[in-house]
């Protein structure tokens, strides 16, 4: 099982996530697609860590998971705040930064 398989799989997952971000309009699903892209990056990091026999890539993947958790927390907080203010949950409707 060469590492190429894993890296190609991670590219496929990344492309699916990017397509999801472009296609869907609901901010919740867009956050989910961002998770897909971050996880694809994680898979590539772990695969290269295996290819070089060096565990530092796994530490990198762990830090990516931390950053993803932060992004989720802030993003979901924004979604709840948007829902509370009765804004429609559609990214196309939210074009101005003025609250």
């Amino acid at each position, binding site marked *: *099982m*060469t*590492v*190429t*398989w*894993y*890296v*190609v*799989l991670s*590219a496929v*997952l990344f*492309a*699916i*996530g*990017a*397509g*999801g971000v*472009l*296609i*869907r*309009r609901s901010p*919740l*699903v867009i956050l*989910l*697609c961002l*998770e*897909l892209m971050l*996880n694809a990056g*994680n*898979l590539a990091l*772990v695969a*290269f860590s*295996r*290819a*070089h*026999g060096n*565990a*530092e890539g*796994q*530490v990198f*993947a*762990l*830090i990516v*998971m*931390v950053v*993803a*958790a*932060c*992004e989720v*927390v*802030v993003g*979901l*907080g924004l979604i*709840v*705040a948007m*829902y*509370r*203010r009765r804004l429609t*949950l*559609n990214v196309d409707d939210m074009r101005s930064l003025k609250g």
Partner: protein
Amino acid sequence: MIYVAFFAGAIGAVGGAIAVIAMRNPFYSVLALVIHLVALAGLFLLLYAQFIAAAQIVVYAGAVMVLYVFVAAYVGAVEEPLWEPIPGQRFLAPMLAAALLVELAIAILGTGLSAIDSGGPTLPGGFGTPNQIGHLLLEQFLVVFEAASMLLLVAAVGAVTLAARSRKRDEPDRARETPA
């Protein structure tokens, strides 16, 4: 045997990912993402990353997905309008994603990296165990570790600030109907 495990994980991961963007209801998208994450954890195990796989299951598929499920249930199903801000976006967006995939595939398959075409070196025992990751985090990457903890703290405070009910604003009726 390893091929069977890899392809089972790959099919689970790709199927879960496609289900995430294909489901109309965000709630089902979240459940599909759980499948994707569990399949990915299996792939991490194949790559000798036991600790990452365990953290993926416990932190991601466990804690983070519970957060998503709560928010999806709180917000409810969002209907996505058929109106397109850019004409032809429904066809353009998948084509852009496909172009990205082709580009990445060309970069990967045409790379000059020698390690990518091998299965990797024979690993020493204890590779990817919590023991090794802990030594790396606390000896070599201590600053990164502390920065990550600061980042988590800032994100938690930010989320509380964002989602907290502001008293000054003219709060809509919805907040009174559903006390969180």
